[in-house]
């Protein structure tokens, strides 16, 4: 199968760099799958699931932020957090979810509400990825 060069870049590390066959990510407009020879493309990435297929094997990961860029078969997925399913600490994610729910209850203004919601989204994404690995 045709491949493209995929690089996943996080602020503190590069979780994935190499040839991939497919990449499934959730953009702000919905899920999109990138195959090789995709047209040049830019999108912002939402908190959610990502799936990278290498040699017919799919690896699932939880992703939050920032954007996806495709340029001449070079794909860059720039993220704020990225964890493959087997790297996720499920207990920690469950705890984070509880904290986030508490924060939503206590949120007084729009800003802290948005923060809490984003935190909850991240926790839910992690949990669902970790459970369906």
């Amino acid at each position: 199968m045709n491949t493209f060069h995929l690089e996943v870049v996080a602020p503190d590390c590069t979780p994935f760099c190499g040839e991939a066959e497919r990449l499934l990510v959730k953009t702000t407009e919905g899920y999109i799958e990138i195959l090789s020879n995709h047209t040049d493309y830019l999108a912002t990435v939402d908190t959610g699931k990502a799936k990278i297929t290498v040699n017919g094997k799919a690896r699932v990961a939880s992703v939050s932020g920032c954007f996806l860029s495709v340029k001449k078969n070079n794909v860059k997925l720039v993220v704020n957090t990225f964890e493959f399913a087997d790297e996720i600490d499920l207990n920690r994610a469950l705890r984070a979810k509880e904290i986030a729910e508490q924060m939503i209850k206590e949120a007084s203004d729009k800003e802290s509400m948005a923060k809490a919601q984003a935190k909850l989204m991240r926790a839910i994404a992690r949990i669902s990825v970790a459970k369906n690995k």
Partner: protein
Amino acid sequence: MGSASLLEIKRSIKSVQSTMQITKAMELVATSKLRRAKERAEQTRPYHKALSEAIDRIRSYEATTGSVFAEQRKDPKTCIIVVAGDRGLAGGFNNNVFRLAASIAEKEGGNCCYLPIGKKAVERFTYEKKEILTDSFVNVSSFGVSKSIALGNTLADYFLKGTIDKAVIVYTEFVSMLSQVPTSSTLLPLSPLENTASGENESSFSDEPLYESSPDEMLKRIVPSYLGGSIYIALCESFAAECGARRTAMNSANKNAEEMLNNLSLGFNRARQAVITQEITEIVSGADAL
């Protein structure tokens, strides 16, 4: 008299020795921390590069000359982010940053507020009674990715609301083990795009890409992360520089201590000899008197 000065010299030798133990330990700690900090600083570069590339890419195709983030406002209220250390004993590390921050504040003309990062910076600007946006970033070493990105979001928010019109970050760049240079860079507004001869170099984008959402929307989402990334890089650099500066400072402290010890032990030996000589003369003259 002789034995009193002997004791005194002995005491100062001991105190120098114990100080030297501390400075030696600090040098070792700084060296090992430095190695890790340097690696961390290197690892953040790809992220930052990817983000700034994307921003340039979007902006180069926008019909208008720029986005809201590139707006140059008149009489700007400047937010100066000052990244310093948590602790002293690092030579001129903290002071050099503050000096640069002060000169920038002067250039911007009075209308400034500060966002200090690191205990020393917070202390300094509270003491000077400057306008501080927030003093909650006391601990540099615990300042991770998520905090940087949160701070980037806050900054972008402030900028859009008009609370601040300009954001400058002042930090120390890690050049090498021996040289750390305080530098500053303007985060907001985004610098105007350079009109390089497009199509010639490989990094220029010849075809307009497909956008998922409008370019402006995308910039609104990317720019906060870009700011966060820039802040994170500055922090990593600054931390590496702090370790470097401390290492150098402690190294010279060690050398000084060694020199002092040499002088003191020389003095000690002389004093001891003088005491012995005096005792012998006393005994001899005592025997003569008999």
